[in-house]
């Protein structure tokens, strides 16, 4: 008798969980935020070219409140061919978007450094776009010892 009650209780619990999850649509169950959707919209159906984008991040970040990030994209940065946009996403942060950079040929070099917050051990995603329509995507895992978003 007690086992059935337990099963019922569990079934009810699962049902409730589904109901509460329903309004957010078809989000994968474990995604903390909308990083995957934002990345998908950014790539716009194009296949990202590998090896053009480099991310520098510490393997282990002792303090998640200030994690040094360097992003560089290989590009001549000429009028004819240059990086226009770089988007940084953190898949486990309360909000996926960290920062978006907009470059011009006057940038000379598509390289930028900034300190960011990471709330947990996670992958940092960096996406880039060129004026010629190429897209890039790289991910880098960072172990976070002390969370930086609370």
């Amino acid at each position: 008798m007690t086992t059935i009650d337990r099963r019922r209780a569990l079934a009810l619990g699962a049902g409730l969980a589904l109901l509460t999850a329903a309004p957010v649509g078809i989000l994968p169950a474990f995604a903390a935020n909308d990083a995957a959707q934002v990345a998908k919209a950014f790539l716009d159906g194009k296949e990202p070219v590998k090896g053009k984008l480099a991310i520098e991040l510490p393997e282990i970040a002792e303090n998640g409140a200030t994690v040094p990030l360097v992003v560089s994209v290989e590009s001549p940065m000429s009028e004819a061919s240059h990086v226009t946009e770089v988007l940084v996403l953190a898949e486990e942060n309360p909000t996926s978007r960290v920062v978006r950079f907009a470059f011009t040929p006057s940038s000379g070099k598509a390289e930028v450094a900034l300190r960011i917050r990471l709330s947990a051990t996670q992958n940092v995603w960096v996406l880039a776009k060129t004026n010629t329509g190429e897209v890039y995507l790289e991910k880098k895992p960072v172990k976070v010892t002390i969370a930086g978003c609370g």
Partner: protein
Amino acid sequence: MAEKPRIRVPASVKKGEVFQVKALLKHPMESGNRKDESGKTLPRKIINKFVCKANDKVVFSADFNTSVSADPFLTFSLRLEETSKLELSWFDDDGSVISETVQVEVK
């Protein structure tokens, strides 16, 4: 009142040379996720946009979100063809704008 930003650029560069701009602004970048001792949520107050103009033309910009660390310290590159007045601006959630100009001589 916000503190004056710190900007580091070379005083003079060669024409077409790529150089670095370092820009630091003291700002709490309050994310809106933190609570004070009484459990009240501290309202979000961040710099949400940074723009760098060279002779009034936008050459670099950044949209910051809440995951940018306090005291945002940005390093980026520029390549100039002529002596330029660089205007760096930080846009606060509260509507205020902090702007600073520096001159870079191109030889």
